[in-house]
């Protein structure tokens, strides 16, 4: 009781509340974790799609997952060298 009393008035969390809060955070972060193979194949796919429309510098592009408290964002950063002007749509579609 004394412990509880002290906690109540010192504003400290009880160990079980700390445990619960840490767990909830850990589980959220665990679920956001993406393994390297997924990330690199995603990067390849994105490069492939963008390359159809733009000339990009494949060397200096970056793909990362930015995490915030309650949401995460996929950030793809690449310099565009130039826009591909004469895209041949018929060739593109027949390639598939």
């Amino acid at each position, binding site marked *: *009781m004394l*412990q*509880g*009393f002290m*906690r*109540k008035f010192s504003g400290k969390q*009880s*160990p*079980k*509340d700390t*445990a*619960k809060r*840490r*767990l*909830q955070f*850990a*589980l959220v972060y*665990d679920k956001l974790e993406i393994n390297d193979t997924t990330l690199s194949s995603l990067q390849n796919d994105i490069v492939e799609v963008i390359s159809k429309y733009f000339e990009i510098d494949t060397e200096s592009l970056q793909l990362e997952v930015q995490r915030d408290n309650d949401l995460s964002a996929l950030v793809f950063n690449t310099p565009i060298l130039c826009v591909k002007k004469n895209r041949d749509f018929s060739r593109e579609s027949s390639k598939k």
Partner: protein
Amino acid sequence: MEGKIIVVTSGKGGVGKTTATASLGAALALEGNRVAVIDMDIGLRNLDVVLGLENRIVFNIVDVVNKRCNLNQAIIRDRRIENLFLVPASQSDNKDVLTAIGVQRVAKMLKSEFDYILMDSPAGIERGFENSVVAADEAIVICTPDVSSVRDADRVIGLLYSRSITPKLIVNRIVPDMVAKGNMLSHEDVMDVLSIDLLGLVPMDDQVVISTNTGMPLVMHNQSPAGQAFRRIARRINGEVDLPIQVPSARVGMWNKISQKLGLNR
């Protein structure tokens, strides 16, 4: 009628999978079912010693799956509890000797002979876990009220969901005094974090160690709080779904009661 295969798993090691499998198997047999408990922890067998059947092993589950013997040759009958049977693991092989197809073939044979087949899964989420889960109809996840165990349980629950199995949870080793003082996660906290159905709550109990030491099934002790908790869980598995879940309670002193009322333990 075909039997039901239930896998007992946890992710983390040392939370009480083997004790739970042995206890639930024994309790289900005491309820009048034909029960087989299967040790899937290949290379690190222990279900045999927990049940006190270690000196009667001739063949094991690896022999059965790899067709070196018949299923019936590997099954050990418990002499104290009628209708309780054990298929031990091999101690010399590693977990890769079993194949999913082989396990499924044996599982089919077991289902035709028993009402309940409990698979004691190894710790971890690798091959051994996969083999234990491959033929399962239902799953029980065991966790203790601590951060690492709950986190691992969450991972395993996710893996079970991805196999279209909806697991149920047993929270093991609850210390009511610590929960009452706010020093240990309560089962409500664990449920909040994991969002999964609860199957039962098992208190910390010295008798578990004593029973393991003597090889006497825990559920045969009428004085053991953990043993009694497992018996109630077995009844719930066996169809008494409405049997209320007892929350392990501390011997609450006057001061603790007052402080609970005042919300000082929160």
